[in-house]
């Protein structure tokens, strides 16, 4: 079965540079979530989208932005990178019949490793 696809899998950037991560949800899924997981930490919710509109916002820095496109893929843009942005970034997707609901099953991608040097 198709899963959530994230690219690139690994990325190395220097401080103050910009990085873009891409997420391709499972076909027919209309909701995308982004998470950040630092070394030894638990995943932290950043932002979510439903039907190409921002749905919820978590602890996402102002230097980060994201969007969901017409084909439902999503991109996370990170600017002015800092050493502390080094982490594993997960994208997840689900299908919500009307709007994101509590019973939706959410599936995660394998993540994109960002290393800031």
């Amino acid at each position: 079965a198709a899963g959530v696809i994230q690219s690139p899998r690994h990325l190395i950037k220097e401080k103050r540079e910009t990085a873009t991560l891409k997420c391709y949800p499972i076909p027919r899924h209309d909701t995308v979530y982004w998470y950040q997981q630092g070394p030894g930490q638990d995943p932290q919710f950043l932002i979510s989208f439903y039907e190409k509109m921002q749905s919820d916002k978590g602890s996402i820095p102002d230097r980060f932005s994201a969007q969901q496109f017409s084909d439902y893929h999503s991109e996370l843009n990170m600017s002015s990178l800092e050493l502390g942005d080094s982490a594993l970034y997960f994208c997840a997707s689900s299908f919500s019949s009307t709007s994101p609901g509590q019973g939706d099953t959410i599936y995660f991608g394998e993540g994109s490793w960002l290393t800031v040097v």
Partner: protein
Amino acid sequence: LAKTTQPISMDSYEGQEVNITCSHNNIATNDYITWYQQFPSQGPRFIIQGYKTKVTNEVASLFIPADRKSSTLSLPRVSLSDTAVYYCLVGDSSGGSYIPTFGRGTSLIVHP
């Protein structure tokens, strides 16, 4: 905001049944409980989801008491490959939408 509390770590041996309990005292009426498994440097993998009573699938069972303030993930006959971090998630519906929020997971180590 529904928060969850789990044991930080657990140890078991191959072939044993493992039960991991999650406390979620502030669970909302419409919230579901979902468990994920995560291996190092991999994305969380969906295990099981439930609302009340008992749910069983091919890999695990989920027990939820009537008050829904806790839930227990049961893994039958664990193997070494079950060594992972297990997360209990409760839907945050406070904003009218669902924010899957991770708490501190349980690091399960299965010994030979």
